[in-house]
């Protein structure tokens, strides 16, 4: 390990290797908005250190689920959301990264990255030090003092990810973080995220529309059903890590993809039919 990496380990809490204990456990979580049942009895467990990807047709309640796990939205009574086995308010306990980078144009890269740390009351100077040390890992070295408007889409997304990592929580929620990026940048970011994840060891729940992405990244892929959203299928991905792009063309990968495609297709058709009716 290099000196810089050593230093990083001291600056950040580095999680332990995956254990069997559930970091996050959803039991029968439902949510209704007026007449619309967005979620119906979602059961989902995520083990510590696990990378779970979630796919589903659009409008299946993924965002609702995310907002509930982020603590921004209450689940209807009857279900429970347990973090480390306890049902507490999740606000401020989960590192949440929305689809858009939502960087603040009046803050430079470092100051955007430390936003969450600042809210927590950490001294700015110390937080900036940490961010400066992390910048290289996030491919932002030399850009610390740039403003978001001066960065490419991929870089902005990395700043947003760095902000999420700086919000030092064991559970990270990523909502289609690479959705807006072009295919090449996207593939690069995926490999880079795996690299970062294996180094910082966080529990990740990652939403995506892209089945390839879901399989490539995840220890487990969860497929949601059409609205009302519930868990339709869970598929463990036994592909070896570290993963590289060659994996995408292997028979093992394609077998998993076939299986997931069928499930997603079926749900998409339901959404489509419901929309047409």
């Amino acid at each position, binding site marked *: 390990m290099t000196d810089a990496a050593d230093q990083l380990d001291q600056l950040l809490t580095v999680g332990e290797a995956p254990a069997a204990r559930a970091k996050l456990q959803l039991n029968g979580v439902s949510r209704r908005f007026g007449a619309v049942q967005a979620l119906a009895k979602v059961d989902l467990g995520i083990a510590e250190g696990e990378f779970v990807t979630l796919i589903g047709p659009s409008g299946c309640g993924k965002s609702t689920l995310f*907002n509930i796990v982020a*603590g921004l939205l209450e689940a209807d009574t009857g279900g429970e959301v347990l973090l480390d086995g306890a049902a507490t308010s999740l606000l401020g306990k989960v590192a949440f990264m929305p689809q858009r980078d939502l960087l603040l144009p*009046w803050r430079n890269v470092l100051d955007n990255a430390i936003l969450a740390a600042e*809210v927590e009351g950490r001294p700015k100077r110390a937080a900036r030090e940490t961010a400066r040390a992390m910048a290289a890992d996030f491919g932002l070295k030399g850009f610390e003092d740039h403003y978001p408007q001066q960065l490419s889409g991929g870089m902005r997304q990395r700043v947003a990810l760095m902000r999420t990592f700086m919000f030092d929580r064991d559970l990270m929620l990523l909502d289609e973080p690479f959705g807006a990026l072009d295919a090449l940048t996207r593939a690069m970011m995926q490999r880079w995220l795996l690299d970062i994840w294996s180094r910082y060891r966080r529990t990740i729940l990652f939403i995506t529309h892209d089945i390839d992405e879901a399989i490539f990244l995840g220890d487990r892929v969860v497929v949601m059903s059409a609205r009302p959203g519930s868990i339709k299928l869970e598929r463990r991905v036994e592909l070896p890590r570290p993963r590289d792009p060659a994996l995408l063309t292997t028979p093992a990968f394609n077998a998993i993809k076939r299986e997931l495609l069928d499930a997603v297709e079926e749900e998409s058709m339901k959404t489509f039919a419901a929309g047409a009716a």
Partner: protein
Amino acid sequence: MALLRLVLPLLLLAALWEGAVALLQISPFYLPPLRQVLGAIWALGPAYAQAFMVTLGEAVAGFVVGGLVGVVSATAFHHQRWLRDMLFPLFVASQTVPVIAFGAIVVLWFGNTLLAKAAIAFYLTFFPVTVNALAGFEAVDPRQVALLRSFGASRRDIWWKLLLPSALPRIFTALRLSAGLALAGAIVGEWFGASIGVGAMLLAALFNEQVVAMWAAILTAAAVGGAIFGVVALVEARLVFWRDEL
């Protein structure tokens, strides 16, 4: 370079003034030569300097308090819907009362004090700032607010780190507009019996038909307005440096 851009149009305007008066042989009753006006100011330097300072003080006092009250009430309206529904119509109604009518009352209340003029400047300032700050707060992306909440941010954090900076461009638009209004308010306030200040000078010159003195007072008023506007623009350039890059 920036200084040149500022000075050059002024010089051009001065040349145009002088040239027009000489070439078109405009009667000094309508427009005296600029030289003569500047000469009058120069001759009574301390008096004009005092008028400048007094009016500037009145306008700035009202302007600053008006700006603060505008931002504070916009904050209250943004967070408390019922407060907004109740008070906002009153704010609007207040602005339909002509400032002249209001001015007479204020002078009646506070006498011939700085407070009276500042109150009128305030009356003209707080409304545009309230409206624009409120629009700025309402325009903030709710997803941005949600993100900060997910970090465990308090309302105060959200206001300070997100709402206020987001609204700054609009607030400064209002402040630039209000800079001129605050000055107008101070001058109107002086018309109700003040003896010192640009407005008082203007009125005295008008009554005595001293055209040169009138123009001198107008130039002094322009200097007051320019000073306030200039400071606002400088602060804006420092605080809202990111606006042009959006």
